[in-house]
Every structure is written in C-alpha cells, then in structure tokens.
C-alpha cells in the first residue's frame, strides 16, 4: 500500500539568471512500513525535498500525495491540520518549545488537534524513549540526545502516516545517535511505522530498507537494500 507518492516535484529558488534549481522533477513512491534513507552531498536538495514532503514549503511544480491526498491542493491552514495528523517531523536541532516540559512538547501535536491527551499512550512513549523520570523537565534541562528523544516522541504521538527525520543524529554523539536510531527502527519494525530519514551517515543509511541518493536535485540512485 502506497503511503507517499511524489510526482515531478520541482523547487526553483530565485528567478531568471539567479534561478537555482534545488529539486528537479523528482518522482518516487513509499510503501507503508518502509524505511527509506535519503542520502546525498550537502546542497543536493535533500532538506528541500523533506520540507516539501512535510508540506512546510511550496513546490514550484509537481505534487505530493499522502494517503491519497494531494497536500498542495489544500490551503495553508488545511495543510497545517493535515500535517499534524499525518506527518511526524524530526529536526536535526530538535526544535522543541523551550518553555514547555518534555511531556508537554510530546503532547503538543495531539493538543493542537483539539484532542484529549491519551495519557496511557504518552506514558508508553515516555517509557519507550526512556524519559519517564524526566518528563517534567524543560528542554534546557535535558541533554541533546534526550531532547532529540522528546522530538521522536512528539513525532510518534499522533500515529502519523510516516515520520520524516532530517539528520536526526547530525547533532548528537555516537551513543546518543545509536539510541535515536534504535528508537526509530523500533517504531518501524514493531509498529510498522513508515520512516523517511535524511542522513549523511552511511551506517544509518545501511539500516534502511531502501536508499534514495540525490545529487543536484535529482534522484540518481534508488537501491532496495532489504526486500
């Protein structure tokens, strides 16, 4: 079952002579439960693609269909609502709200959707990310690895169609990186959670079912690692 369908996705920054093609007519699909790694050198268009898939940037051309819905046929507000229900985003720099505690940050997408918080589920997530004891701590009181674990928890709380992770370990030491990837792969294997990870790290890429290599805004290789 296809969860994500990217068709002719193009992003051009600037105009005329200053135009820079960040993404050049990219097309691919991702199936439910798949773990896809997107690799490529700096400036190849990985992050641009992630932002377009996540619906937080506007493409110059093309479409992104998530669970059968073209997200760019929606207006900005509808896209925000769609995003909080269907996409879990993890950033390299955690991007937590500094004045909310760990559990409040995790609960946020659920509360933004005007739903009653599912405490049982939150406790499960807190247990899974190993932060039960530190759930009332503010981001400033947590280490980088712990902050990223909160970010993973936040991405999981709404059972999204897929998780988008942009260099989730890029700012972490090797131990913390391993812990984060263990968490993500656990969600992928146990809960059949679709996972799209942008990374520079070859070891991480090799854990994926499939590796998409991007260069100069184009997919130059699409390798299936595990059937």
């Amino acid at each position, binding site marked *: 079952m296809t969860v994500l369908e990217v068709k002719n996705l193009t992003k051009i920054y600037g105009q005329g002579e200053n135009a820079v093609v960040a993404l050049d007519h990219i097309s691919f699909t991702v199936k439910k439960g798949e773990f896809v790694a997107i690799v490529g050198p700096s400036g190849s268009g990985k*992050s641009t693609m992630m*932002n377009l898939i*996540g619906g*937080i*940037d506007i493409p110059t051309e093309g479409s992104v269909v998530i669970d059968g819905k073209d997200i760019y046929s929606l207006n*900005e*507000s509808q896209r*925000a*609502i769609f*995003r*909080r*229900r269907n996409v879990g*985003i993890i*950033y*390299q*720099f955690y*991007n*937590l*709200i*500094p*004045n*909310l*505690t760990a*559990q*409040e940050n995790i*609960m*946020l*997408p659920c*509360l*933004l*959707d*005007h739903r009653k*918080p599912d405490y049982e589920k939150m406790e499960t997530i807190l247990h899974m990310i190993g932060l039960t004891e530190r759930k*009332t701590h*503010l981001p*400033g*009181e947590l280490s980088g690895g712990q902050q990223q674990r909160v970010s993973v928890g*936040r991405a999981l709380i709404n059972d999204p169609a897929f998780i988008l992770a942009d260099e989730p370990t890029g700012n972490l030491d090797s131990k913390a990186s391993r812990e984060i990837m263990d968490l993500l792969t656990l969600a992928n294997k146990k809960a059949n959670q679709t996972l799209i990870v942008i990374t520079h790290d070859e070891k991480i890429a090799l854990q994926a079912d499939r590796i998409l290599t991007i260069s100069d805004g184009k997919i130059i290789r699409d390798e299936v690692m595990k059937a």
Partner: protein
Amino acid sequence: MSVTAYLAFSQLIRKRSRSLVTILIIALSTSLTTAVCSLVASGNEMLVQTLGADYASYGNAYKAMLLVPAVIFGGLILTMSVIVISNVFKISAGERLSQFGTLKCVGATGKQITETVMYESIFLSIIAIPAGVLCGILFTYLGAAVANKYLDDLNRLVNMMIRKFTMSVEVVIAWQILLFSGVISFLAVLYSAYRPASRAGKKAALECMKQVEMTGFSLTRKEKEKSSLLLGSIEGGLAFTNVRRNRHKTKSAITVLSISIVLFIVLSGLQDIARRAEEYLNFDAKQTIIVDYVSNREGRVNPDTGRREYRSLNPITAATAAQITEKLKAYTDKDFIAYGNDYDTYFAMLSREMLTEDMKEALAVQEWELADWNEFEVEILSMDDKTYQELCDAAGVKKGAVILLNSYTYNDRGREKRIVPFAENMETILLEKADGTAEEVIIEGMLTTEEIPEDFFFLNMNPIRIVMPDVTVRGYSWMSSPEDEEGYMEYAEEVLEKYFPGGVSDEYVELGYSTRVYRTDDYAKVMNIAIMIATVFLYSFVIMLTVIGMMNVISTISANVQMRAREFAVLQSIGMTRKDLEKMLNLESLICVGKALIYGLPIGLILIFLLNYTMIQIMPIGFSIPWLAMVVVFLAVFLIIWGTIHASVRKMKNQNIIETILASKL
C-alpha cells in the same frame, strides 16, 4: 578606540532602531528631569516676586507645595527610567551573548565584557543627555507659557474679586540646574546598564556560546505537577503557559504598564475629587452679582477672662446697610437679597437637653465629646427689610422678632447632611462675649430646615444662627441679578465708594475695611483655572512618563516576539494553523493586560480611596469609583500590547517556516 568600545559602537549601529528608541527614552527622561527642576526654580522665583524673599508668613507651606511634587515627580521619572533603560540593556546584552562567548574564548575578561556593555550606555548618553537637556529647556518654556496663559485669567479674576494681584511665571534656566539634571540622568543610565553588564561579565564562556539566556528559569513544583497546557483550549493553554513561563521576559513591560495604570487612575481620581470639591464649593445662588463690604478685625486675648476675642474695626450699622440697600435696589431689585453677619462676637452654652438626637449624632461624627453644657459659636444675621419680613411671615412672628434658624448642615462621613439641631422648646438663649458679659435673647420665632428659604442655606456655617433686627455686623453682602451686569457693577462701586471711600484700593489694611463687586461664578472660575493648570501639568507629565514606559513595552514585546520567531515556526511546522497562532497571541495579549491590571488597578484604587478619604474629612464630597478611567486604561493597555504583538508578527508573516527554523539553530 579600544576593542570593547568598538564592539559596543558596532552593536549600536547594527541595532539602529533600538539605539534610536533608547536615545529617545534617555532624552525624554533627561528632559523631564530638567523641566521639573527648572519649573521648580521658576515657581520659586514667581513666589519670591509675589510674596517676598521668604514667601511671607506661609513660607514653609509654599516651599512644601513646590518641593513635595518635585520630589515625587523626580522619583517617578528616575524609577521609570531605571526600569526602562535597564531592560533595554538587558535585551541588548542578551542578544550579544554569543559574541561575549566568542570574546571570552579568545581571552576577554569578565571586566572587559562588562566594559563593552557600559560603553553602550556611555555612547548613548553622549547623544541623548545633551539633547534631553535642550528639550527640557523647551518644555520649561512651553510649561511657563501655558501656565502664564491661565495665570493671566486668574490674575484678572482675583483683581476683580480681591485686589491687585499679579502672578506670572518667568523661566529660570540656571547652569547648575542643567548640570544637575544631566548628571542625575547620566548616573541613572550608568546604574541601569551596570546590572545587565555585570551579569554578562560573570557568565561562563560556554553558557554564552550556547546562548543560555540572561535570566534562566525553572518550573515550580506545582507547574511540574500540573500542566497549564490543559487549561481550556490548546491556544489558551499555550498562551497561559507562555506568559507564565516567560514572566522574566515581560516583567519590566508589565511593571511599567502597571505604573502607568496607577498614574492614570490616580490622576483621573484626583480630577474627579477636584470636580466634586468644586461642585460643593460652588456658590450655587440664582443671583449673578455680589456687592460686599467687610470690616477688618483685630484679635487679642482678653486679660480678664483669658478668652480670645475679636473686635470689628469698622462694623456696618443696620441703618447704613439699609441706605445702601435702597440705593442698589433703585438700579435693580431682581432676585435682590441683602444680609449681614457677625460670627466673631458671641458664643452660647447649651445644655445636652437642648440638642436633638440628630445634633448629638452630628457632634459624635465630628468627634465632639458631649458634656452637660456645650459651647457653640453664634452667628448673628441681619438682612434687608423685605427678606426679613419674609422670614417673619414664615416663622409666624411680627417684624422685630428674633428668629432662630434651626437648621444645620454638616459633613457626615463624606455626605452632606441637613438636620434640625436644637429642641423646638428653646425659648431663650444666653449670648456671651469673650469679655465675660452676656445678654439673654428671647427667641420669638424658629424656622426649621423645611421652612428656611433656599437662599439661606449657603450661609449655613454655624449651628446657632440667629436673625436679629437692627444689629451692627462685621460684614454685609447685597446680591442681585441685574440685566446690565457691567453697568450695575460700575454703579455699585460708585455707591460703595460714597460710603466706604477707597474700599476697593490696596490700602485695606490702613483703611480697616474693604469692598468688592464681583460675579457669583467668579469663585468657580478661579477654581476652574487652578484645576485646569494642575490638570494640564499633571497630564502632560504623566503622558510623557507613559511615553517612556510605552517605548519600553513596545521594544520589549517586539524583541520577545522576534526572539520567538523560531518557536512560532516550529509550532506551525508541527501543525499549528496561522489562525490558531493568532488566537494564541491574542490570548497572550489579554493575559498580559490582565496581569498589568491586577497590579495597577488595586494600587491605583487604594491610592484614590486614601486621597478621597483625606478629602472627605474636610468636605462632604462622597466617593466614586473611576469606572470610565478603568475602561479607558483597559482598552489602551490592550491596544498597546495587542498592536505591538501583531505588528511584530505581521513582519514575520512572509518568513518561510524552514528558513526561520534554520536561521536560529539553538
């Protein structure tokens, strides 16, 4: 230029708009200090010219009138300035944290970091303080011009009502005053900058590099146990959490807003008190012109009785009063009423039984300890034939009878109360003098509150008022409503001049009497002008002070919003709609307004209540809550906060979520 000075200078250039706002704040604060000091000096000069070198016999009272407001205003200016300027440097130092971290990493000492922030304050002062002093001089001239405009009217009225009187403000600009204002302002700026500067200097290099904020915060146990995010809607919960947990960032803005609220509430309350006092004191008579005569008196302690006694030097006889009455009535008899009184000569001892229960209560309110026999001052009234006849008719007695006006108006804890003070069976009264002599007077008629014509209520100064025929009294007034007011006033002056030559001149001390012809609403006009002068100056001062405060509110809130750009982008990236974001910000505005009002309103109302309480001890003016001012203050504060937040957010509207997030990788 040292590197620390250069860095400070480049920060000021880089943050031009904030530097400009800071310069404006310092300049405004300096100008207000200069204006207050110069106006005090000018006021002093005016009083010296009007009253003499040591302000005549009320020297201390006038000195207090000048110095007490100056100290209060000066204190307010300095407090507001220190809060506001300190906050500006706190924001600036917060923004330069990573720069401080880098400097520390390459070997800068804490002292050097402190130095660079202090240099900012010095550079800003070099421009702002001289500009402020110049503006202060301008404000002083402006203030003096406004005061003189009103004083001209005041002089004209006082000249008509009392005698030759000229008061005008001449601006005094002394170099000592300018130097004093400049130094005070500079010290305030240095003091304001020093705290954030020294905190920045003490921060560890790594903390600076990580941009750990100047004022860290942690959650209370209660906040940890119960999430305020679950209060109502998520936008409301987020707004509440943000305001609560960012309280250190909005503290100075909320403080100055609260101070401004207190100032406006107190000012509007004062205006209300003045208005009610004016209404109470207003000579509410239907007559338009008053012609009056008053004899000077001399007082001494009677050597035989030891009592203070007064003697009128040139009392007016009933015959003279009647002659003048006839002459004035020949011009107009419209609403004519003439009366004379004497409240210096007699007193009476009345037994407890002679007092009504209402009078006992009135005396208790005035903290009078009731004895078996109680001493009251007596007011003797004389009046024109026609009016006297009317009173006799009302009392059912023949002309020539003595009539007691048995009505007393007093201040019953802030409310005016009119009562019947004495028992209706009072038949005689013993009028005693300070020299020990006494005469018994038979009270032939008595008029109670309902029976006394309205015209006589304004005379109600003493509990015992006795109308007697053909008595010599200290002063006399003739009131009427002529068609041709100017002509009548001229005529009345001529009449008075015949009987009391030179009475309108300045030689009243030598002559031993004085005469006046004036309009009944002139007193109200004088009070109006006095209130107007005070209102214009107080409002100008409070508005200027509020402008300083609002600059701080606007710069703090917009800086906070800018610093939260990433937070807003993250919220949007995880699914918050623009509408929800705006809703959250609206609610944050309301909560901030609520906080400012929670502190400001009760303090303002308590101060107004205390001021009013002091006033109602003197006159029955009641108390009213300044609802209108409260509504205006609420709307003004809301508009300022809401407007600033939304203007700042609007600036970020076209920012890309991802670019905003990436621009501040914290």
